[in-house]
């Protein structure tokens, strides 16, 4: 097998002591930052980007892989243990996980999430290993019109599917595209929208857009409506024995595999990333649950943590398929990773497996290694993550601002980037406040220039014949699928909104044993009720 030998070679690179240390550091710091409340995977990757600036490409990508997987994993710890709803990618985990923790079964929830992430991450990475080279070989034959079709698909699905409203998603996408236009245009060398400012001639770095929207925008938004008072973390028993009982394991392994099966394919298509996958997995587990488990849904069913958490991680690996083989980012995190690749002069896409095969396979090998490191690190370190969760919020957000400033300044060692960062941050603040999703803007910022390049290449080939854009069967299929994806996506979102607005109707009186030891922390119910009135 071709990919197997290549993978082994990748392992021989990634297992070198310095890269192993890099991976360990990446996983550790990724989890530590991902655990911090309010910091999702995209912000984790964006904030930690300066760490990679001076490394060699292989080391940087290995560090990145660790941070990416670590950040994904860290989010679930937050949503299980923190007494408030988490970010959208792991909010489904919070539905059951948070209730399990309140019922004194936090350790089991964390363990099933950790092992589920490991299983899903490993299976999905195996799938990536064997699928990616084939897809890359096919993708080499695609022409610019096909690429343009793919990018349009990515645009519209990301714009339409992320967030709660289609027009708002498209506004967000449009703003990102406008930012992507700024700078010197590649083909004819003309300056566009630079207003004569010299530093704008190089364009606005996607890192600035991402850090501005996620770190600065989020901080300003949280600051405007900060939850005051002490941080309530749900306590977890330390003992190893309570981690996963035989019964928990029996109930978890099927959801792990089902979550993987749902998450990976959804991650590979541009359908809103992990969000949709976790929700679908949750809905599936809830429907499949029988007997005792069924009654537990809505008050801490382990299946409802095991499934979505696996789906989340499988989707994270799935996102890497279009990223590595086509150069297409389908989530904000992927957009940041692409911009990191670009800063090394590496162009992800079909040629990557031919031109930079050593690098790619070292990256894929480090995904396997990162997964193992994650589980080794996380089960024993839960006590530490709990401490991290307790960081006083003024310090947390002060720290986020400081690191955002570092990320901006370290781009060109120029404070003009700091101004741009703040401006983007203010836009991000208003977007959160008025219900606009920010991820499409990041994706638009990086995909916009790619779309224009492919479009103009196709027009140059066809001498201006617009029909060239739909001349190949591939492009026709892509546009056809686009319609299907958007339709199903909107339908799924409606279902999800309905599910979230009507939590499992639980007959009172069932499962009194689970209810008994809770009460260590007040429920979020009464809190929410006030909003409704």
């Amino acid at each position: 097998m071709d990919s197997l030998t290549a993978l082994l070679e990748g392992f021989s690179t990634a297992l070198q002591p310095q890269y192993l240390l890099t991976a360990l550091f990446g996983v550790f710091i990724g989890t530590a930052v991902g655990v911090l409340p309010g910091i999702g995977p995209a912000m984790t990757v964006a904030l930690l980007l300066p760490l990679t600036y001076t490394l060699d490409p292989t080391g940087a990508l290995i560090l990145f892989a660790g941070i990416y997987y670590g950040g994904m994993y860290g989010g679930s710890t937050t949503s299980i243990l923190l007494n408030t709803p988490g970010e959208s990618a792991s909010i489904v985990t919070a539905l059951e996980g948070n209730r399990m923790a309140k019922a004194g079964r936090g350790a089991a929830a964390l363990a099933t999430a950790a092992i589920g992430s490991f299983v899903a991450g490993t299976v999905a990475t195996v799938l990536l290993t064997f699928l990616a080279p084939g897809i890359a070989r096919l993708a080499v034959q695609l022409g610019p019109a096909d690429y343009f079709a793919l990018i349009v698909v990515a645009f519209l699905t990301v714009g339409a599917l992320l967030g709660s409203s289609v027009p708002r998603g498209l506004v967000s996408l449009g703003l990102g595209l406008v930012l992507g236009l700024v700078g010197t245009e590649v083909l004819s060398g003309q300056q566009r929208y630079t207003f004569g400012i010299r530093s704008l001639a190089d364009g606005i770095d996607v890192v600035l857009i991402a850090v501005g929207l996620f770190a600065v925008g989020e901080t300003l938004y949280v600051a405007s409506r900060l939850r005051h008072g002490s941080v309530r973390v749900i306590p977890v028993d330390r003992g190893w024995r309570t981690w996963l009982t035989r019964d928990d394991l029996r109930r978890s392994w099927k959801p792990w595999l089902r979550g993987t099966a749902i998450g990976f394919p959804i991650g590979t298509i541009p359908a809103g990333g992990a969000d949709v996958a976790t929700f679908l997995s949750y809905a599936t587990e809830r429907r499949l649950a029988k007997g005792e488990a069924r009654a537990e849904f809505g008050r801490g069913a382990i299946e409802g943590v095991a499934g979505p958490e696996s789906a989340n991680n499988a989707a994270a690996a799935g996102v890497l398929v279009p990223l590595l083989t086509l150069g297409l980012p389908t989530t904000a995190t992927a957009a940041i990773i692409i911009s990191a690749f670009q800063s090394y002069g590496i162009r992800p896409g079909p040629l990557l497996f031919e031109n930079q095969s050593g690098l790619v396979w070292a990256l894929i090998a480090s995904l396997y290694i990162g997964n193992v490191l994650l589980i080794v690190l996380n089960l024993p370190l839960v006590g530490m993550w709990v401490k991290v969760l307790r960081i006083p919020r003024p310090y947390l957000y002060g720290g986020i601002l400081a690191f955002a400033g570092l990320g901006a300044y370290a781009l060109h060692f120029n404070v003009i980037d700091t101004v741009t960062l703040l401006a983007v941050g203010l836009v991000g603040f208003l977007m959160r406040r008025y219900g606009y999703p920010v991820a499409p803007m990041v994706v638009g910022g990086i995909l916009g220039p790619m779309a224009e390049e492919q479009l103009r290449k196709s027009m140059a080939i066809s001498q201006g014949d617009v029909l060239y854009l739909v001349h190949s069967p591939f492009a026709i299929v892509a546009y056809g699928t686009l319609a299907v994806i958007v339709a199903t996506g909107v339908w799924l979102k409606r279902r999800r909104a309905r599910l979230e607005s009507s939590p499992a109707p639980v007959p009172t009186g069932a499962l009194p044993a689970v209810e008994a030891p809770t009460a260590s922390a007040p429920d979020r119910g009464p809190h929410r009720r006030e909003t409704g009135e």
Partner: protein
Amino acid sequence: MTDVAPVPSGASAPEGTLPPRSPVRSAGEYVFAGAGLLVGIGTIAGAGAIRVPPGSASVLGPRAFPYAVGVLLVLAALAVLIGLLRGRRGLPDDGEDVDPDARTDWTTVAKLVVVFLSQLVLIDLAGWPVAVAVVFGGAAIALGAKGRWAALGIGLALGLVTQFVFGTWLGLSLPAGPALNWIPIFHG
């Protein structure tokens, strides 16, 4: 009313029709969507000003894509505005540290913006560690940190650590500032 209702008053559609909040807030929504519309119009207008090099071989010049982007933004912003007129309000983001019942605290936001802007002057004049101390300490105090000096002290420590890790160890050229430049390890 059920016990836990993430979306008020049984909103089944993704965009809930929220009960009227303050008129200021809904005005803000119109202003933001309107600003989006203006950016779109500006993009279209600006596209006409892009110089097209004479005799360029490419059929599609540097103007076409900006026109398309502008049109997309205008259409999307119009759709949001029409939705607003029909009562489709945006749902503000949830977050672990966001208090859904809190009023918007504009003073804190303004303080944070000012604190962050201090970097423009401080990084070059006073050096990176001092700039971080001010950003971290200032932001923490604005957000209600208990001890002022503790916040500034932690900020300075963070500044020195990042200066050492990123400046000295990783080799990014962060200015150490006049106070520290004489120390060899911070000099890079």
